[in-house]
């Protein structure tokens, strides 16, 4: 029986008992649950990674203006900016995460990881990581397996949907996936991967989902960039051997609790937060067709 990804504890226990690498039970899970062969799993991972790289490339080379006009080639602007606030690598990370996410907002092809709203984070983190450290692709694919295991647990214990758990569920989960992949790819052990997840979620906790005009553009695109940064910060702390103090499963449960008690206006309804600012309301008039039907609740739903 393989790991079911109900908890990080279970994942750890399995790896310790069977003396396997952290990504191996994720392969086992997919084989058990979906009857896929290991070869097929690696192929699909490689295909997903290729789409991620394409998205980064497209966002940096093609015109990225969304129908609403709110997204307007931000990644290219960052890449061309002469001021480096921290350094080349930092700028690269910000530009790459923005690029992939802008492709998504412009109805291009992306990998939802875990969702499309957060689809810039994994591509930005992974491509930056691979370039900076000159990692073999195989290592990145292993990192993606680690990320997938992390997301499976978050899905079961909390949520990965903005409409259910707020933005912490989308960009928060993606950042945690990214942080785990970074730690693994740079040689961190299982405990360090889990600490990175816990630290990341602590940093993203409570983030509401408040997209302007209900479009996955503002604040989503910029949040992808900052989530990528948080992933690297958390990975740096975890790789140094520092601890989140609170065990990762407990952190994820807290995330679930916060998501459950979050008001509906902060869950993708575009009724609160940034979506409810005067400027956002003005934008709404321009980008949405103002024909909102109101029908009484159907009793027999």
């Amino acid at each position, binding site marked *: 029986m393989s790991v079911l990804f109900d908890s990080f504890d279970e994942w750890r226990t399995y790896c310790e008992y069977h003396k396997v690498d952290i990504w191996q039970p994720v392969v086992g899970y997919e084989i058990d649950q979906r009857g896929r062969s290991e070869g097929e799993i690696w192929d699909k991972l490689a295909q997903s990674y290729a789409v991620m790289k394409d998205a980064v490339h497209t966002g940096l080379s093609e015109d990225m203006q969304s129908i609403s006009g709110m997204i307007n080639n931000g990644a290219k602007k960052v890449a061309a900016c002469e001021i480096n606030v921290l350094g080349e690598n930092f700028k690269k990370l910000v530009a790459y995460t923005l690029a992939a996410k802008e492709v998504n907002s412009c109805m291009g092809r992306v990998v*939802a990881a875990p969702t499309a709203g957060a689809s810039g984070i994994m591509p930005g983190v992974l491509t930056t990581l691979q370039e900076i450290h000159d990692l073999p692709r195989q290592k990145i694919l292993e990192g993606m397996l680690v990320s997938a295991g992390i997301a499976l647990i978050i899905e079961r214990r909390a949520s990965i949907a903005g409409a259910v758990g707020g933005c912490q569920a989308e960009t928060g989960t993606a950042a945690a996936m990214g942080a785990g992949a970074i730690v693994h790819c740079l040689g961190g052990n299982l405990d360090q991967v889990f600490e990175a997840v816990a630290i990341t979620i602590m940093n993203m906790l409570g983030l509401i989902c408040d997209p302007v005009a209900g479009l996955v553009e503002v604040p989503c695109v910029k949040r992808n960039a900052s989530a990528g940064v948080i992933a690297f910060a958390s990975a740096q702390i975890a790789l140094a051997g520092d601890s989140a103090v609170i065990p990762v499963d407990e952190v994820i449960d807290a995330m679930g609790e916060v998501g459950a008690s979050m008001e509906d206006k902060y869950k993708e309804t575009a009724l609160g937060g940034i979506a409810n600012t005067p400027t956002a309301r003005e934008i709404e008039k321009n980008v949405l067709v103002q024909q909102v039907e109101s029908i009484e609740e159907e009793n027999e739903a």
Partner: protein
Amino acid sequence: MAERSSIFDMIGPIMIGPSSSHTGGVARIGRVARHLFGGLPEKVIITFYNSFSRTYEGHGSDRAIIAGLMDMKTDDERIKTAFEHAKEQGFHYEFKAVFNASSLHPNSIKVQMEKDDLKMSVIGVSRGGGLISIVEIDGFSCNFSAQSPCMIITSEDSHGRAAFITTVIAQEDCNIATMSITRSGKKGTAKVVVELDSPIRPLTLEYMRSVRGIKNIIYLPDLGL
């Protein structure tokens, strides 16, 4: 949760933006509805509920559901231009929005399909990350993701019926992943939803369809969602 997610639900699907809940999941619900109906309906009324009701246009969910009904997958670049394709095919649709259906999941859609005498109503939920559940068919509640082959059996409500169904499937070397039964008191009908691990043979389906008391079987193959 009826079933465990794939790792490629966590890293995936590969899809057309902008939103996995509003574009990817919605296209999937449309595709499943089409296959439950048995083809492209002539006329459809689509109701977007709750969270979806205010945001479906901006996300292109309206295009996505139409694209799904025309059998397009989540990574089909024609989703963007779905309305134009629908026009070419003479396919009629209408959208409604209900923002306060508290009994339904935040991201729910009802698809009411019609063609000649055939009518069917399906409610699907977009669970996030492009994952879906079909939660109601023609007023009977159910809960399946359509990621594996599935049978939706309408039968007379009697105890023997469920046992019969499981026996026949067992003979097939086919595993039942999940099975649920919903009864309707008024009409004395039961809906049995069976999710299978592997496809069932057409001959077996024919046989089951011919058995007295079984009114109808919809067979949903693995759609490669």
